[in-house]
């Protein structure tokens, strides 16, 4: 069991994961670059994010080689956060609905276009 002798693994696995993280980051950047929208966008972003997080935790932080007692101490408590997220999604939507239904907020308001202040390309963004 490697955990006790210190986490020692071949260099190759780190290099492979490193390259993989690069690829996944590039893919998630391309989601924005090619301006995917809707369900496709959110699912791709979440999948790439979870894959990246999983590889960092499992390989770089060595969690997959740790003993179960430590693994569950690390990964167990954050499960409670999923409930917080769920509750606050519901709460956020409720507040939004109240603002639209009772305070006359426009649910389809669009943000103003962004103009960047630059030395030689003022207003270049549109």
């Amino acid at each position, binding site marked *: 069991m490697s955990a006790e002798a210190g986490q020692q693994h071949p260099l190759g696995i780190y290099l492979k994961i490193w390259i993989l993280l690069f690829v996944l980051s590039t893919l998630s950047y391309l989601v924005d670059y090619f301006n995917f929208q809707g369900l496709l966008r959110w699912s791709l972003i979440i999948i790439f994010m979870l894959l990246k997080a999983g590889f960092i*935790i499992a390989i770089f932080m060595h969690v997959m080689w740790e003993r179960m007692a430590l693994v569950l101490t690390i990964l167990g408590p954050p499960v409670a956060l999923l409930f917080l997220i769920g509750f606050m999604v519901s709460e956020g939507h409720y507040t939004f609905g109240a603002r639209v239904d009772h305070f006359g907020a426009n649910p389809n308001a669009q943000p103003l276009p962004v103009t*960047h202040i630059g030395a030689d390309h003022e207003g270049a963004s549109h």
Partner: protein
Amino acid sequence: MSDTAATNITESRSGMAGLVDDWTSDKQTYHVPWGKAMMWIFLVSDTFIFTCFLVGYMTVRTSTAEPWPVPAEVFALSFFGSDPIPLILIAIMTFILITSSGTMALAVNYGYRKDKRMTAILMMVTAAFGASFVGMQAFEWTKLITEGVRPWGNPWGAPQFGSVFFMVTGFHGLHVTAGVIYLSIVARKVIKGHYDKKGFEIVEITGLYWHFVDLVWVFIFAFFYLW
């Protein structure tokens, strides 16, 4: 350190049976150096802090009826008068942080091989990547502040955009800055031979902190910049 811990569990099973063994043996539960266990407990608590920030962000973003500024436009950058490229600086920052995680993983590996020189070099390279990350973040903050983004408002839409941006990226940047200092201190001690007798677990512990900072950025990148 590793010797004493190792002797405790030579007979131990792995998996769920090992979980029962570790918790019921009336001995030390976590068979790792105490510093590593404490770092993990700190990181779990830090997970809660960052999740609270991100959940707070999610809540204001879903509940505000004001339109949220488009991150791809806000964080676009032109080079030499070109058309602005969306999120390019953030993409570069992401790659820098991943690269620094890679060099950190290598440093841990060289540490356990007792190659002090390579360990210290790789840790300093990691710290240098971290410092450049903070530098780019300072640039980004300056740019947004110049354009009128404030914690209480911005020229484009929902005023919460600024408060979330400064809060979340600021707290993350603070972690990166602390990591750069932490790495530099440990790298210096490695070179000076402080860990020759104690063992090089400290490099792995420092690495855990650094990978965590990278991990948090993965979520910030996905939820704040791409969403």
